[in-house]
Each structure stands twice: as C-alpha cells, then as structure tokens.
C-alpha cells in the first residue's frame, strides 16, 4: 500500500499526534530549563533574576534533596523487590490448576484499578489507624502494641500501600509470560530428569528474565513519580521522612512557591527517568516490527 498518493495522506494523518506530542515535550521542558535558571518566587512575582546554575547547586546540595533522593531510591527499590518477588510467586500459583481461578484472578488484579487516593485512604484510616484501624485490632489480639504507622514507620507504610497497588501489574505480566512458556519445553525437561525446582531455575526463570526486566523498568518509570499516596497520607512527613523527589518538587513549587528550585528539581527527575527510559526503549524497540 505504498504509493506516492498514500504517503502524503499518511503524513497528514500523523501530523496532529506528532505535533501535539512534540509541543508537549518541548515547550514545558524548555520552560522548565528556563525557569531553572531563574530565581523566581511566586510570592514576589516581579523579582525574577537570572542566576544560572545556582538553583541546581542549591537543589543538589540541599539536604532535603539528598533525603528525598534517598527516599525515592528506597521506595522504588523496595516496591520493586516486593512486587517482583511476590509477583513471581503469585504468577506461579495462578498458573496451577485452581478451582474458581477467574475469581481469584479478579481478587488479585483489583488493587491496580483502585484510585490511588482511595487506596491510600483505605489503608491509612481503615487499616493502619493506630486506634481504630484493623491492624491495630489484630495487634491487640496478639497482645502487641499497635504500630503507629504514619508516625513510626511512615516509609514502610507508603511502601506497603504502593506495593499493594502494583503487585497486580507485576503478577499479570509475569502470569502472561508464564503462560506463553511452551508446555513441551517443560515436558522435555522432565524427560531429561529435572525436578520441579530444577525446572523452575533452569527453564522457567530464564524464560521470565525478559518480562521481569520489563516489569522492573516500567514500574521504575512510574514509581519514580509516586505522588498521590504521599499527598494523601503523610504529606511528605513526618519531617522529610516520606518525601520523594516528586513530592519535594511539588512542595517547593506549590507550597514554598520557589519556582526556580522546583524547576531545577524537575529536571533532575527528568534526567533520572531518562536513564531508565533509555533501557526500556531499547527493549521495546527490539520487539517492535514496523
């Protein structure tokens, strides 16, 4: 279908999408770079002045930034660990003959489709509330003191909430990948004398290597900017304990109104995401036939 006439048509059809995304990419990014070089506070709007790299220096040496970077890495790393490991186990379980499998799937998938603000509130108030939450009640049943999650272990609480939300994603992807594993390969391994564990280690796991990588990369991209859960539960605190980079930028922009610093931070986030995106695009590109 590649005649000259259709080629011109094709380019016109592409134009809106490409144009919009291009503008969407370039304009805000360019502005962010511009703002990042200004000392611009929304509270005294007419006093913008060019300060070059000072915002970057300030942002990067700000202990708040270092703390938020650490929190980001802890958050992303822990959620990745939890979701991938549990995801593999769950996928293996759901690959077994289970009666009523579709209902179990529904139960396992559900958390991903719940609005982040709803999830956060349910966990914060119905489950983790130190006085009237369910966990508190369970703890007291066992004679333990209930954990005051959002004061004593806020990061852990956030990690739990976010992991709960993303576990279905990992499980679903890994389950799909598992089901594409050729039954005959497993049978060949059995003929070769492999037991269940060997089959898992030598056949299943290598087959899952690529999907696991994809899950990790995609989750990282989205986890770098976890926002709603923090916004709704801890507001970044206590102190800076649950502030990740995304929340730090938000608080600098819309709470402290320090546009310059927030923009610098925004660019840092973009750079981080780009590093991950580079690898992800490579993998996607390999699979893509156009």
């Amino acid at each position, binding site marked *: 279908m590649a005649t000259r006439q259709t080629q011109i048509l094709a380019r016109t059809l592409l134009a809106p999408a490409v144009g919009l995304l291009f503008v969407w990419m370039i304009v805000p990014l360019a502005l962010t770079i511009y*703002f990042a070089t200004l000392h611009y506070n929304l509270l005294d709007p007419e006093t913008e002045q060019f300060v070059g790299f000072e915002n970057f220096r300030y942002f990067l040496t700000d202990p708040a930034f270092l703390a938020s970077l650490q929190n980001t890495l802890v958050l992303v790393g822990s959620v990745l660990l939890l979701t991938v490991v549990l995801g593999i186990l769950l996928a293996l379980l759901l690959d*077994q003959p289970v009666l009523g499998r579709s209902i179990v799937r529904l139960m396992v998938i559900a958390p991903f489709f719940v609005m982040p603000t709803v999830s956060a509130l349910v966990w914060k108030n119905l489950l983790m509330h130190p006085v009237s939450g369910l966990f508190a009640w369970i703890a007291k049943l066992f004679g333990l003191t209930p954990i005051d999650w959002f004061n004593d272990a806020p990061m852990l609480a956030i990690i739990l909430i976010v992991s709960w939300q993303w576990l279905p994603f990992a499980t679903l992807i890994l389950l799909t990948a598992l089901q594409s594993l050729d039954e005959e390969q497993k049978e060949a391994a059995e003929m070769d004398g492999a037991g269940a564990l060997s089959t898992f280690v030598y056949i299943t796991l290598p087959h899952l290597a690529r999907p696991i990588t994809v899950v990790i990369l*995609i989750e990282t991209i989205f986890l770098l900017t976890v926002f709603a859960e923090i916004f709704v539960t801890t507001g970044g605190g206590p102190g800076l304990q649950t502030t990740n980079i995304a929340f730090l930028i938000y608080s600098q922009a819309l709470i402290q109104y320090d546009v310059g610093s927030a923009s610098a931070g925004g660019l840092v*986030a973009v750079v981080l995401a780009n590093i991950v995106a580079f690898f992800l695009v490579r993998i*996607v590109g390999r699979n893509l036939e156009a």
Partner: protein
Amino acid sequence: MARIATNRQVVISTAAAWLVGFLIFFPILWMVLASFKTELEAFAIPPSFLFFHWTTENYATVQERSDYIHHALNSIIIAGGSTLIAMLIAIPAAWSMAFSPTKRTKDLLLWMLSTKMMPPVGVLVPIYLIWRDVGLLDSLTGLVFILCLGNLPIVVWMLFTYFKEIPRDILEAARMDGATIGRELIYVLTPMAIPGLASTMLLNLILAWNEAFWTLNLSTLNAAPLTVFIASYSSPEGLFWAKLSAASTLAIAPILVLGWFSQKQLVRGLTFGAVK
C-alpha cells in the same frame, strides 16, 4: 500441566490461591463492608465482619450530596473527554503508521512512547504556570487537555498494535475485489478494527479515571474529579468513615468492573509490547 493434576495438588493450590487472593482483595472488601455500616460501627473496636446492622443509609446520603454528584460528573467528563479526543487524534496516526510504514515509523513510535516515560513532575512548574496564566486552572478543559496528552502515546501505541494484527492479505483481497481505499476502510478495515478500538478506549478510560497527579495539582473544586474529592478527606476528623467508604465504593466500582474486562489490554498497553 500435561497430565491431570492430582486431587491433592488441586486442593492445595486452590486453598493457597484463594487465601492469597482474599488477603490481597481484603482492603477493598473491608471498605465495601464499612460502607454498609453505621458510622459508629465503622469505627468500632472490635470490628465486626459480617454480623452487623447492614444499612444503605450511607449510599443514600452520598447520592444526595450534590458535591459528590458534581465530582462524579467531572470524572466522567474528564475521563470520557480525554479518551475520546485522544482516540480522534490517535486513530489516523496509528492507521498511517500501521499501513503506510516508512523507515522512520519505528523510531517515531518509540519516540512517542518515550514521551509517556517523562515524569509529570518534571514539567509541573511550567504547566501550572501556563495553566494559571491562561485561566485553565481548575477547569475541565485544562484537565481534559492534559490527560489527553498524557495518554496519547498509549492510545497510539495500542491502536498501532491492533491495526498491525489485521492481516494484510485480507485488505489486499478487498482491493482485488474492486474496493477503493474508502470502501476498503468502511467495509473491511473498520469492522475488523472495532474490537481493538473498544479495548483501547476501555483501558484509557480506566487510566484517565484513576489519574492522580494532574488532577490533584491542577484542580481544586470546580473541575475536581473524584480522585481529588476523596483526597480532600485525608484527615480523620469526625466520624464519617462509613460515608466515605460508600463514596469510595461508588467511585471505584465501575472501574473495577471495567478493569476485569481489560486485563489483556493492560498487558498490551502498559508493557509497550515488550511482553507477549
């Protein structure tokens, strides 16, 4: 399993799976149960699981509150509007990439996907300022526009994959049968593409409905969808958990149902084809 699993295996896996499934689903279940309790019961210790006074008064209250309906309508408009507009822009683009590919097509597609990988927080500042200056803050138009752009890469991507799956020779058969391009589109391509179009719309409706970054930052009251509405109750003051649970259940129920139907699309859309 090639052989019929032993009864014992089935029992163990079933029990384990149901237990795990139940544990994972529990928070949602707990919330739904709370929505049917009175406020006192919702906060009671020890909590009651099934044997409490079931009531639908919370749902009645929520339905009556005009602000809930207002925000629900906003959610519908924002999710529906952004998905629809994204589809209108994406369908021609995906069509052209799938059926008139050039050497650049693959790179173009990858570039589009990469725009989805940009962290929204990276451009929060300029978007917020532009929106403010143009008067789009707290407006439905502003939110529809942003969500449309945010989801556009995924819509294009998914449509591209569905279009690619239409066998080329069926289209060629139509051409041999005397169909012009227009009639090929109407009589053959579109009917075959409808399931793909529906799936794409479904997934993106869900993603737009649940979006909780731009909605939280770019709206306060007028245009706020349910995500924001629920978030505004983040401090536990007063006894209104049962009502909040009812509101939340209403907010997530349609999406849970739709989500059940879009599992395959989820894998396709969000892994960008890197997992088959």
